[in-house]
């Protein structure tokens, strides 16, 4: 099997992203290191505001102002696909690319696709009979009317040389693959004529239409109801297998991650606190934060009536004024006075392929 051939696709090394806002500097991502392997799914979990989405944006070099990548590198093992010529490999540090340049724009959408949290607002709503102004100044030529199908077709044309008819055929095929009924008709629909689930599928179809090597799914099912969520996850799994695509799955839904990912990264305040195989982490979480997270999942039948659901005590710390030592120490049930508030824990292998950064696993 391909188990042993886990070939890295994207390596994030010691990434720091800072937002220089009026009240001070926010370290949104603080020394993040992780690897995404070709054809595998990496789950990223953590509370809101722990830097998951910022990491995703950093990979596409799309950090919004006033954010900045201050340190670290994102190594992307690029495999250029050219028909008829041998495969070319190239290594690109995405941090160093020009954020408006050609290289990163080829990679965005073409090689690394992204699905957003909000299917309702991620499709351009009014695409009208294009105005003359619009057509004259825009780079591409394309379709007179912005419909769902065109959004896919547009992306295909930006990265591959195909004719308009072929692009439309691909669009219909993609809609069919993501399970939209009557794709031939739906291709001409406007976003407001589609349901939330359909819109999210269209988003997925857009992201997948160029067969990216990596799909970044930033909470793709958060806005959907459970039955549609299940369908979307099925579609993503199917497409992953058929296209050997890697997925970086960002969520705060532990149930979803358990069914999707092979490996999990747990983030807290811009840092990775624990990393390992999904089974390992669910069976034997090492970091107190992960343990607390897992305890806070409501489970049917396990609790007596009236019993309170476990929660993590305290609040996420003020990003301008992070705690000293381990950032989790004010909320940690295993807090060791004199150590946790003084010493920064290092990221260590606690068992085979299972890493955590906690002083519990470090020698005194």
């Amino acid at each position, binding site marked *: 099997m391909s188990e042993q051939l886990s070939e890295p696709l994207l390596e994030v090394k010691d990434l720091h992203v800072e937002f220089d806002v009026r009240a001070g500097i926010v370290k949104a991502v603080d020394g993040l290191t992780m690897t995404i392997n070709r054809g595998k799914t990496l789950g990223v979990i953590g509370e809101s505001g722990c830097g998951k989405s910022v990491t995703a944006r950093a990979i*596409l070099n*799309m950090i919004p102002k006033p954010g900045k990548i201050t340190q670290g590198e994102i190594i992307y093992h690029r495999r250029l696909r050219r028909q008829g010529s041998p495969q070319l490999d190239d290594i690109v540090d995405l941090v160093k690319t020009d954020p*408006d340049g050609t290289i990163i*724009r*080829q*990679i*965005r*959408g*073409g090689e690394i*696709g*992204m699905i*957003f*949290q*909000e299917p309702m*607002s*991620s*499709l*351009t*709503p*009014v*695409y*009208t*009979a*294009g*105005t003359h*102004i*619009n057509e004259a*100044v*825009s*780079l*591409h030529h394309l379709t007179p*009317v*912005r*419909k769902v199908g065109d959004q896919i077709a*547009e*992306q295909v044309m*930006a*990265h591959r040389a195909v004719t308009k008819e072929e692009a439309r055929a691909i669009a219909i095929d993609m809609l069919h693959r993501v399970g939209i009924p009557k794709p031939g*008709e739906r291709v*001409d*629909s*406007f976003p407001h*004529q589609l349901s939330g689930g359909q819109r999210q599928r269209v*988003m997925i179809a*857009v*992201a997948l239409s160029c067969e990216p090597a990596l799909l970044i799914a930033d909470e793709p099912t958060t806005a959907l109801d459970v039955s549609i969520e299940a369908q979307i996850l099925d579609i993503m799994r199917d497409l992953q297998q058929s296209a050997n695509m890697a997925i970086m799955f960002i969520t705060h839904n532990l149930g979803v991650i358990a069914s999707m990912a092979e490996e999990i990264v747990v983030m807290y305040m811009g840092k990775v606190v624990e990393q390992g195989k999904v089974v390992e982490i669910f069976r034997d979480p090492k970091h107190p934060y992960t343990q607390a997270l897992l305890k806070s999942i409501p489970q049917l039948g396990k609790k007596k009536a009236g019993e309170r659901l476990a929660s993590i005590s305290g609040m996420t710390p003020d990003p301008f004024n992070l705690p000293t030592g381990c950032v989790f120490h004010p909320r940690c049930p295993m807090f060791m006075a004199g150590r946790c508030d003084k010493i920064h824990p290092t990221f260590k292998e606690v068992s085979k392929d299972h890493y955590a950064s906690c002083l519990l696993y470090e020698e005194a």
Partner: protein
Amino acid sequence: MAVAEQVVKTTTPPKQKQVGQSYWSLVWWKFKRNRVAVVGGIILLTFYFSFVFIPEFLSPYALNNSSDYTEAGPTRLHFVTPDGKFQLRPFVYGVEKKIDFTTRKRIFIEDTTKIYPIHFFVHGDPYKLFGLIPTDIHLYGVDQATNPDVRVLIMGADALGRDWFTRIMYGGRLSLLIGLIGQIMTLLFGTVMGVMSGYYGGWVDMVIQRTTEFLGAFPDIPLFMALAAAIPSFWSPLAVYFMLTLILSFVRWGGLARQVRGMILSLREREYVLAAKSAGANDNRLMFRHLLPGTMSHVVVIATLSIPGMILAETALSWLGLGLRPPLTSWGVLLQDAATVRAIHNTPWELWTVPFILVTILAYNMLGDGLRDALDPYGSR
């Protein structure tokens, strides 16, 4: 399985293709129900078609066809012959020009022995329809081949004996077009500047916004005067005309740019912009294909409502003698003719220009209001 599919295929009737209810079709549906706006639209379409495309045909004479009917009042149309018979076809009498020695005014006395019936589609001054088809058919009038000296002047004549109604129609061509062309140029300037200003922010925004403020701070008329004075006097009237359009739109793009900028500022934070960017779209594509369409409904309304301002500005400038000058004919030029006390006293029919301007501007406002309501098809009203 295959057979079953075949059966299904043959038995289902060919379905009509489901056509998406696009934004603009909703807008059209709502617009149609607003009677006032539809009337405004129809008036404007009629005016534009009549005055811009076919004034040669609608007017009984050529623009500069002068006659002996100097400062003649509107010709009276008669239906009853001197012997008391009613006829459906109107006719005019021949006139005799005299001078009233007490008031020192020219007077035209109808000669009831000379009867000239008015016909539709009569032969008159030759012209080219749409600038292409040579013909001499005019919508109405007295046949000029047989009676070259008789005039039908439904709105009177000017000091050179030219038909005032003819002049109004030809004047409408320039006045209506200057509004439209000028507004299109304003739209181009305004939206491009506004989109760039809102999208890039920073120093681009700074420069553009300060420029609009600078332009906006000038009092209109002196600025027009200065710019119009800069037009070389030896330029052909047509070149002056285009220069004037350019000046008008140059002064007026600022307001639109600010509104577009405001809308872009909010639109650019939408998820779909991020989504498009993550799909590899570049700045131009984001600005003009993803952001600009979101502002179009607003821009259309603003544009419609500010065309009257454009037309009035041309009129005002020409009236002041700074805009178009004879031999060009525009409504402003015509008003200038009518702007003396003498003209108001002797040839009050020259004020017929005013209702045309009024109706045009009211029609634009009616249309604009209707569009504003219709462009929000999901709104409650």
